[in-house]
């Protein structure tokens, strides 16, 4: 089954944001951002769109499916 991978951490670090700052910007807790970055939680479409909007990218650029080997 393919797993959802994300580049949130990469974009966040590029933007110089802390997990807490990003969380505040999209209305979630820091723990949620942490889990998203670690791939432990799949976000809702709204949250994914909100995060993509913060970085000015599309959802496809931020999230991708990878086949498990």
């Amino acid at each position, binding site marked *: 089954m393919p797993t959802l991978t994300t580049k949130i951490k990469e974009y966040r670090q590029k933007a110089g944001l*802390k997990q807490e700052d990003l*969380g*505040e910007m999209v*209305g*979630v*807790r820091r723990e*949620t951002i*942490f*889990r998203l970055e670690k791939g432990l939680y799949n*976000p809702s479409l709204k949250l994914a769109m909100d995060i993509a909007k913060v970085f000015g990218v599309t959802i496809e650029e931020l999230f991708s499916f990878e086949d498990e080997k």
Partner: protein
Amino acid sequence: MLNELSYNRMKWYRFTASIFLICVYILDFAAKPYLPKTLLNSLVIIALIFYIVSIFLFIGGQKKSKKVILDELTKHNEAKAAQFTYLLLTFAVFLGILLTRLTDKNITLSYEVLFCVLIAISAVNDGYYLYLEGRGGQDADTDDED
């Protein structure tokens, strides 16, 4: 203090109070002849106050705090915890009915037993929620914060 009280902390307070209440009730059942009734009553009252205060502190904190307290992950974990609690409760009720049928006895439901069941449901729900929160976020604090 109100600004600092997170949902998880409120859950911790409530969970601790529930476990404390259950322990007091077990003590009341097992050691009634050895302990004074007033001591047991005082312990129940203390735990109940702790339980209720933790809920009111959380409600107050939610209104005052500007931080995000509840988000979709909270709801996701809450739903999982509720599902687990419901399953466990159904299993416990089924087991209780089965045992009474097999032993040909009756279940007497007093207010105290009902109260204990409710507290146990609350404890299981809070405990499983805290487990889910802690499982993925154990090293959250040690993550690089740039």
